């Protein structure tokens, strides 16, 4: 054995042992990385800059990779990107490290079932055969609807290919699973705006942001866009004011002009009190107020008289009542209402995590926007316009989705919440074959969740991922996926502006491992079942080109260009009379246009068109606003597209600080969210102190609460509620409100990678089985928590 080979073997064994601490080592084959080689020291390096799309989250930022000798050695934001304009967030930057992650899967792995799960490496041919067999049988038997796909994102080519292929197979079951932190967004949008799409915020023209527990500066929507807007709003002539309402000193609170300290879980109460104040003082837009149906009262479907939102606000959410519940002085609430009313373009943003304050929290914040007339207005809330990409050829949409009424209570509900409901009702699994992409936010659930039990009853689960993730625990087959750097890709960025855009690029570098794009696997499946039409794309690159060809025929829009950004800035600053547009190409040569879009990193239609609150786009509350009146059972009977309502507040009442318990404040941690497992030490150790993930779960508490309990930094604490218990590391800080304990949401709490071996618990584990809201999410804000030292140190 040569010396180098010896060290390779030793290194591989060491890696296996390290992963073993995550409980997964015995499931992995020995690591042999055929692509691993040291950079050449003799050859002249070749250097180029390649355009690509960041795959770190749904924001879809266009990035430039520095490639030396076909190695990615650097990354920066593309200045042509209309959102980030050259900036990249830390999570995006860490995608380079993720590309070379030592725990990245090198080839397909098959797992056995049973208590002693074993794994063995198999070839792609065998892996695909294992997948093809049951799919072909199901389709031949006319049971294609027993096949399902769960994606980590519903915006882009992978989602389009999945929808097209599954429709060909006769299945409607393609679900984009929002991560835990975004779970409340689409269902709330369904209820209030009539569509299960995430609303956008016209922050480019907002002058005051009211963040109600929203982590707007910590990984919210498009972090690079928000950071750029925040930075520009603080240095240019037009100032941007940020007001944060929340209990904990988060990064957003730290940077806010005004931090309103409220009790955990009472952000919504403050928002509703502000809405009530606007009604009382007549500060809101009169026309917008008139548009809110049911403001003064209405007759329900049984003919009974119900009170409107205005009356309910004035009765239940008076300033005095809100002050008592939230701990925010009444004078402060009145001052905030005056600030909101005086601003020219204010907007309220709520927390997107259902479990923190429930859908009630986000819906309450939107009620404030509605009452203040901030829906569909400049600087306000709007429904984004989809980009005019061409639909992929295939069968028509198949009805029967699980995430819509009557099976699910609200359209847009996470498929895993539906699984949970089915499991609790002792129903069988809805699929015989389930394909998961990038973990599909399964790690959010926690292994104790009933959904996991139902998942394990599915005969074949196939996971496509770049590395080990939560889906490994249930998958029979794991297929190594490619990163966005290694494949042609298009993504519709998570909306942060009133325009539509598509980020797109060809493969920037050769594939590092023996992986394949998930879309290619799906297309293979369609062909194996003999159901794809002749004009179906042959691979993901062809699918992207087909989709982008639809942009060529659009009337407006252009490839990402630097002059565009300059013109957009001029427009935003009021120095231009009209937005740029319509120079996307003459549409005569679609191929050349698509090539230009891919070379430039994307396409954007810069018209600032806000979806108006009209019947054509039912963005306003067009149904009846109900407050604390409907029952969960009643939601089943209520067609979601006919009614809009404010869900009942189901969050636990804030703890009144009895000496033995503290009130739980869940903290979203941007580092831990997004696609894939954050097995990236650069993020774990260098992110901002108050939002950093650290190498293990933590709990922050005030010195006034720590001292009498004898708690010091790095103590390992045991936290216990009536619904669960976890062990975390103590952080003692004045940033935590006295009487509370702040615990991060830990969606990837399964120790998926060598740097995450201790990440096994988070706030959601303290609420297993807590009474759920309309979408089945657990709501934990304000839960009383018992805190005890274990006597150990981190």
């Amino acid at each position: 054995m040569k010396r180098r080979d010896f060290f390779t073997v030793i290194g591989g064994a060491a890696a296996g042992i390290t992963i073993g601490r995550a409980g997964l080592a015995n499931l992995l084959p020995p690591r042999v990385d055929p692509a691993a080689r040291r950079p050449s020291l003799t050859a002249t390096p070749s250097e180029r800059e390649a355009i690509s799309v960041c795959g770190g989250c749904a924001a879809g930022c266009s990035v430039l990779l520095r490639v030396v000798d076909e190695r990615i050695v650097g990354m920066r934001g593309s200045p042509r990107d209309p959102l980030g304009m050259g900036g990249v967030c830390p999570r995006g930057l860490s995608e380079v490290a993720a590309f070379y992650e030592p725990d990245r899967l090198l080839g397909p792995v098959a797992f056995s079932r049973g208590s002693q799960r074993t794994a063995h490496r198999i070839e792609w041919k065998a892996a695909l055969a294992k997948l093809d067999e049951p799919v072909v049988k199901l389709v031949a038997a006319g049971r294609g609807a027993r096949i399902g796909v769960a994606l980590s994102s519903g915006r882009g080519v992978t989602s389009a290919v999945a929808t097209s292929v599954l429709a060909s197979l006769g299945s409607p079951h393609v679900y984009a699973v929002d991560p835990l932190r975004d779970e409340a967004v689409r269902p709330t949008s369904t209820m209030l705006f009539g569509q299960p799409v995430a609303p956008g915020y016209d922050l480019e023209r907002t002058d005051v942001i009211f963040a109600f527990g929203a982590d707007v500066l910590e990984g919210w929507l498009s972090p690079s866009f928000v950071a750029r807007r925040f930075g520009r709003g603080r240095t240019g002539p037009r100032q941007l004011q940020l007001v944060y309402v929340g209990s904990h000193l988060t990064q957003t609170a730290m940077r806010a002009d005004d931090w309103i300290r409220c009790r955990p879980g009472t952000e919504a109460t403050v928002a509703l009190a502000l809405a009530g104040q606007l009604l009382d003082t007549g500060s809101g837009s009169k026309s917008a107020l008139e548009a809110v149906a049911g403001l003064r009262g209405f007759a329900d479907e049984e003919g009974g008289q119900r009170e409107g939102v205005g009356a309910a606000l004035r009765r239940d959410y008076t300033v005095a009542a809100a002050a008592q519940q939230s701990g925010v002085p009444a004078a402060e609430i009145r001052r905030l209402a005056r600030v909101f009313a005086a601003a020219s373009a204010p907007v309220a943003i709520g927390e997107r995590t259902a479990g923190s304050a429930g859908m009630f929290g986000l819906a309450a914040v939107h009620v404030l926007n509605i009452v203040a007339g901030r829906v569909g207005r400049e600087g306000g809330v709007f429904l984004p316009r989809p980009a005019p990409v061409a639909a992929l050829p295939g069968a028509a949409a198949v009805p029967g989705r699980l995430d819509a009424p009557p099976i699910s209570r609200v359209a847009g509900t996470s498929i895993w919440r539906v699984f949970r409901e089915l499991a609790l009702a002792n129903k069988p699994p809805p699929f015989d074959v389930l394909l998961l992409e990038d973990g599909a936010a399964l790690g959010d659930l926690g292994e104790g969740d009933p959904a996991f039990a139902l998942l394990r009853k599915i005969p074949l689960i196939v996971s496509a991922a770049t590395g080990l993730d939560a889906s490994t625990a249930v998958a029979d087959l794991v297929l190594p996926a490619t990163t966005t750097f290694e494949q042609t890709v298009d993504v519709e960025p998570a909306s942060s502006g009133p325009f539509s855009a598509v980020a797109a690029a060809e493969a920037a570098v050769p594939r590092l491992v023996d992986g394949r794009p998930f879309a290619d696997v799906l297309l293979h499946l369609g062909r194996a079942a003999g159901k794809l039409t002749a004009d179906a794309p042959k691979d993901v690159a062809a699918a992207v080109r087909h989709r982008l060809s639809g942009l060529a025929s659009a009337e407006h829009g252009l490839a990402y260009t630097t002059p565009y950004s300059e013109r957009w800035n001029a427009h935003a600053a009021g120095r231009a009379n009209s937005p740029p547009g319509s120079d996307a190409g003459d549409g005569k040569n679609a191929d050349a246009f698509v090539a230009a879009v891919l070379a430039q990193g994307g396409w954007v239609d810069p018209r600032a068109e806000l979806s108006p609150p009209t019947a054509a786009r039912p963005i306003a509350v067009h149904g009846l606003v109900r407050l604390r009146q409907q029952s969960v059972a009643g939601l089943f009977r209520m067609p979601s597209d006919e009614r809009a309502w404010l869900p009942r507040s189901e969050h636990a009442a804030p703890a009144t600080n009895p000496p033995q318990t503290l009130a739980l404040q869940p903290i979203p941690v941007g580092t831990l969210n997004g696609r894939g497992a954050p097995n990236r030490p650069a993020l774990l150790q260098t992110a901002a102190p108050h939002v950093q993930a650290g190498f293990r779960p933590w709990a922050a508490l005030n010195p006034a609460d720590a001292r009498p309990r004898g708690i010091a930094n790095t103590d390992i604490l045991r936290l216990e509620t009536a619904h669960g218990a976890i062990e975390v590391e103590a952080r003692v800080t004045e940033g935590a409100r006295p009487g509370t304990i702040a615990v991060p949401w830990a969606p990837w709490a399964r120790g998926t990678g060598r740097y995450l071996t201790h990440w096994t618990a988070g706030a959601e584990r303290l609420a297993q089985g807590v009474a759920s809201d309309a979408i089945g999410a657990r709501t934990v804000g304000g839960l009383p928590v018992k805190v005890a030292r274990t006597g150990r140190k981190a």
Partner: protein
Amino acid sequence: MSRWGMVVDLGACTGCGACGVACRQENNVPDVDERTWRNGRQRDWLQLVTKVEGRYHDAQVESYPLMCLHCDDAPCTKVCPVGATYSDEEGLVAQIYDRCIGCRYCTNACPYSVKTFNWLDPVWPQGTERRQNPDVSVRPRGVVEKCTMCHHRHQKADDRARFEGRELRHGDYTPACVEICPAGAMIFGDLDDPESEVSKRSEDKRAYRLMEELGTEPKVVFLRPHGKRS
């Protein structure tokens, strides 16, 4: 001759930490595991410093990115017995790793604690060495390292300008942290050029230098956040 400096607008900074991650990638700062991190043996050329003062209800927060401030009167250069750290002709405080004997006098002399002694050899788990920037050397155990203001970028920009037969222009040379900052909170340039933005902003009424009273004359200037209510 330029006098390079930086302005960090803390009113615009979101504290996202992208500057730190970009610095690690650009300068081959190795990742560490939890044990090394807890022992304080990680190498951070740029870190986010956060101070919370007062009690919860009136807490005052100070948060800023901290890197080598490239002082005009740098204490570290005065104590180095072997001349491994020195101020170059453009005012950047440089570090010659081959010359450093690891005495750590400079780390103790630095009032800002921004110099890192390498207690351990860098560890690059299998395959991760492929992301190393070929323009920057990987430092061994036993030497002191710190922010160089991405001096290698300066060299490349200089070479390019010379090849093109021209002077270095504004914007030719930008450190990685400045280039990547999504908020545009970091501004870099020639402090001696009265027309440069960095020069103008460094004279802003919000401007201050860390531990100004020590007389080290740092060339990284901070701008205080706009007035806060709380």
